[in-house]
């Protein structure tokens, strides 16, 4: 029986004509679909390859930089719209914890007053001794840096990268590997720069690390992200004989070895030790650090540009 005829019409022996429809043939539609998705996947793979291999100076970096600059007004506009809601949330949140927070801050203030007096004395003594020794030091924070305050304009989606995009770039003097801080402490390091924007790798990123020191005992180690968590840090490579206690403050070590020096100047606060542990099999202590910076609520940061560069 012909495909053009129904069973009834075939039985009647009538000629049957199909009503023309606009349905595209299955084969053509399938081909078009496969072609479009194939081209898009191929385009994505080409973009990944070129972008990944060429890095900062590749052919795509100019395009990406121009695109990011063009998108910036939209990001800034949205950020401005969202800011009142963020502020309202922070205000409501702070009301809930205001009483206990005030008590904690009073206690902390008393403690800090005592330490400020002792520190002032130590500072004067330190200055005098340095002058006597003609001591050559690595750049110090914040004296040897010019702060560039920048608004946070974006965050990558997903759990794969811990980074932010800030509204300051090479036209503001920002370069690759410049340290980034807030008034609370260390945030991360600049990993990509365009004329008007910079990408900052947060300290909570898997690939980030900073040499650090226990301020009280001088025990040194490397602060890095604690695996499997989002915002906890560990002070790694601390020798077993070094003494580290809970509530000790951890700051950047800022080492220098010949021409090489740490990306971070010494003395930037990182966090407070929350737990210390060690096992017989481990070579080093397991020190967990609670960062001072709230990486999830960064609105603005300070990029530290070396004074001698400007």
């Amino acid at each position, binding site marked *: 029986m012909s495909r053009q005829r129904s069973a009834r*019409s075939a039985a009647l022996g009538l000629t049957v004509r199909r009503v023309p429809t606009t349905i595209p043939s299955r084969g053509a539609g399938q081909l078009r679909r496969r072609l479009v998705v194939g081209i*898009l996947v191929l385009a*994505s*793979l080409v973009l990944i390859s070129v972008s990944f291999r060429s890095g900062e100076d590749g052919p795509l970096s100019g395009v990406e930089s121009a695109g990011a600059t063009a*998108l910036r007004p939209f990001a800034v506009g949205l950020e401005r719209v969202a800011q009142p809601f963020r502020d309202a949330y922070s205000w409501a949140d702070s009301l809930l914890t205001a009483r206990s927070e005030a008590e904690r801050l009073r206690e902390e203030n008393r403690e800090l007053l005592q330490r400020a007096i002792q520190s002032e004395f130590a500072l004067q003594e330190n200055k005098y001794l340095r002058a006597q020794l003609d001591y050559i030091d690595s750049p110090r924070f914040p004296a040897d840096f010019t702060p560039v305050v920048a608004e946070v304009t974006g965050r990558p989606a997903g759990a794969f990268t811990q980074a932010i*995009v800030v509204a300051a770039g090479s036209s503001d003097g920002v370069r690759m590997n410049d340290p980034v801080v807030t008034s609370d402490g260390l945030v991360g390091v600049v990993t990509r720069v365009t004329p008007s924007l910079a990408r900052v790798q947060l300290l909570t990123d898997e690939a980030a690390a900073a040499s650090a020191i226990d301020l009280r005992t001088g025990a040194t180690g490397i602060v890095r992200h604690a695996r499997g968590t989002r915002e906890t840090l560990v002070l790694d490579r601390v020798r077993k004989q070094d003494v580290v206690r809970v509530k000790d403050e951890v700051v950047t070590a800022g080492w220098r070895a010949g021409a090489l020096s740490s990306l971070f100047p010494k003395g930037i606060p990182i966090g407070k030790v929350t737990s210390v542990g060690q096992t017989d099999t481990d070579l080093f202590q397991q020190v967990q650090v609670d960062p001072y910076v709230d990486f*999830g609520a960064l609105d603005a940061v300070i990029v530290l540009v070396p004074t001698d560069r400007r």
Partner: protein
Amino acid sequence: MSATIWLRALAVAFVAAMLQVVIVSSIVVGGGAPDILLVTVVALGLLRGSIPGAVLGFVGGLIVDVSTLGTLGVTSLVLTLAGFWAGRYGETTGRDRRLAPILAVGSITLLAGVFGFILHYLLDEDVVARHALVTALAPAFVMNLLLALPVHRLVRRIVGEELRAEPSSEVEVLV
């Protein structure tokens, strides 16, 4: 799909991408953040078909990659496939199912999480499997599911739904 619908759909993808970059990525609950762009691309795919889904996923991903100064093409690739799969699901077994947006968003969130992890691993980026596939993905999965129906309804109001022509079950007999 008419030019007006294409423009509307592109505008929806653009706004979703910017919202994701500027606001939604910072809303971290229980270790993970929702992905409103993924949910929007799935909705666009379900409503308008596999080709618009793939194209809009590619465009949305490219906007995210450009505005976050990331490796170009990574998010585009994940979202192209997400939009395409959502579209195919909408064109075939998901057609006229009320829970299709939830099923599609749930399964594509999980697939996109695993695929994204593999992609970043291949690019030699340090990603901890437990964090990417459990700690962050589980809350993101729940939040994306919560967003699925409201976003689907909103997107349908803006771009409408593709009227899929079905083969006629009757033939006209001309005597």
